[in-house]
């Protein structure tokens, strides 16, 4: 591993700024089926979204390719928090990388309870997924309501001393306000962004292709949106030294560098793995070389170094 890639995120030492994203890499071992893939090449792996009770998830189809991306609606298929703690976590090779659990719930109290149970495990950090559409109040997603986001993060904070990373929804008017509320509630880090909601229709049947009718759009199609959201959130988070995982369509070395320059302290890779399962080694090498070429000792010296243009318009 390149020495200049070593970094810290929420005080966790990481081998690399790359974090594999929840929902793309199962429970951490699935990609090791691929010859040449190693968990040791990434700083951390964010495990599959976990709920209080087991969930079977949505009916197929669950995925469909769309221009420069894909839509998914898996429906949080998982064996439930107890099975994850009892059966899955003990089997993970924790010498290779860090593991972050992603948690989801229908009620505020669910989040608190799941966080409490993982607090007693050896998981390195907890990512709070506040984009679940099935919620207690009014049916709106938690993540699109800054006050509800606050309550979810607060419930988790009260139940764990582990690092908390809150995954923000892009499907809201003011992501900066939501970030501020999550920081107020005690989140240690932010993941920016979750998928954008989208749809694809089969013109022969006139039905949505995705079994759940709609799903989350990921891949290069959303990268410019994600990049701007990271820039916007960074304006809020930097005052509090709350680090950001920049994520959304990162597929190349330059993509990763753009996110770091915009303010990300780590970069999430998800959909790109489906194109190239060996992409992490290539992005590591590219970031490392960029740091050398620009006389930077580590990525801390690159984070948030964006030089904005003077945007005064000419009348």
């Amino acid at each position: 591993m390149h020495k200049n890639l070593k970094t810290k995120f929420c005080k966790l030492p990481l081998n690399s700024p790359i974090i594999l994203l929840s929902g793309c890499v199962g429970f951490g071992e699935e990609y090791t089926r691929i010859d040449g893939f190693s968990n040791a090449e990434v700083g951390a792996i964010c495990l599959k979204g976990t709920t209080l009770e087991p969930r079977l998830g949505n009916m197929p189809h669950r995925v469909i390719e769309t221009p420069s991306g894909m839509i998914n609606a898996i429906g949080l298929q998982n064996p439930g928090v107890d099975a994850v703690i009892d059966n899955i976590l003990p089997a993970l090779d924790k010498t290779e990388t860090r593991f972050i659990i992603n948690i989801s719930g229908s009620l505020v109290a669910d989040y608190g309870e799941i966080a409490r149970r993982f607090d007693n495990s050896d998981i390195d950090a907890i990512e709070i997924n506040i984009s679940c559409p099935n919620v207690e109040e009014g049916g709106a997603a938690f993540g699109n309501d800054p006050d509800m986001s606050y309550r979810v993060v607060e419930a988790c904070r009260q139940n764990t001393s582990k690092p908390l990373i809150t995954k923000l929804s892009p499907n809201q008017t003011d992501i900066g306000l939501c970030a501020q509320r999550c920081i107020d509630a005690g989140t240690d880090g932010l993941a920016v962004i979750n998928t954008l909601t989208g749809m694809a229709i089969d013109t022969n049947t006139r039905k949505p292709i995705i079994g759940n009718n709609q799903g989350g759009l990921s891949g290069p199609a959303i990268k410019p949106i994600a990049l701007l959201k990271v820039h916007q959130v960074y304006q809020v988070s930097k005052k509090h030294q709350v680090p950001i995982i920049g994520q959304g369509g990162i597929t190349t070395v330059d993509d990763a560098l753009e996110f770091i320059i915009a303010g990300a302290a780590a970069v999430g890779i998800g959909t790109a793995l489906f194109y190239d399962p060996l992409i992490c080694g290539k992005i590591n090498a590219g970031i490392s070389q960029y740091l050398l070429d620009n006389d930077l000792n580590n990525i801390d010296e690159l984070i948030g170094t964006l030089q904005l243009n003077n945007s005064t318009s000419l009348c």
Partner: protein
Amino acid sequence: MNKGSIQVIDCQILAHDQFAGRQHILTLESAQIAKATKPGQFVHVSVSNMLLMRRPISVMSVDIQNNSFDLLYKVVGQGTQQLSERKIGEVLSVLGPIGNGFTITDKKSPLLIGGGVGMPPIIAAAQQIKNSVYNPFVILGSEVPFPFTSKLSKIPTPHIKENFTMPLLEDWGIACRLASLQNYMGVFKGYVSDLARVYLDGLSADELLQVEVYACGPKPMLAAVAQLAKSYQLPCQVSLEEYMACAVGGCAGCVVAVQVDNRPTMQRVCVDGPVFDATTVF
């Protein structure tokens, strides 16, 4: 979990032949995949630089002498359309081999049934058991012209009067008959499950004890074959397909509903399948 069992390989296109009904047979070069692939396994192919997601395609046959393997696919969407435009000499990124293929059991008279682009894993299974103690019978069905020039078979099949076959299977010494609702010469007119019933009705009770059914094709076909197998009390393995993203078990995008211990579960076609016990699916 078989760590490191899936290779990421750049494979050169050695041949790419088009057949009627927008069907294509693609021959790719890879000694590793030719050697390692088991019947019913598939590869996950990058079709072009325009579409980033890979496409899962079953391996139809392998040629260990020539370090190559064949895929059969039909153009149904953008992905297969772009794949069909790739030329001999170009290189495709391939992940594979992937999945739990057919488990060839000790029942000595396998009944292998393939419909449409479900033919490849059936042909792959036939290739594995040619020149062995097995006495297989293959039924292939298609509603568009078969992706080969069918010919008169010299291998007798009592009780079935239609006598055209797939030349490759004939060369392997494997009995095969064809089925279609279309009026094709020498082809049984009806569904593959109808032809399978004619075949099974010609077997004695002792012979039926040696039959296991292996099937791949469209879901309605598989449901009919599963029902037929059940009515004859025959074990039956079916190979399924579903839209797929990662193909290594990471995303849970390609699931199908499967009964396990009389409870519903969602199993991944890529690594839990693609082959399942028919009684757990239908």
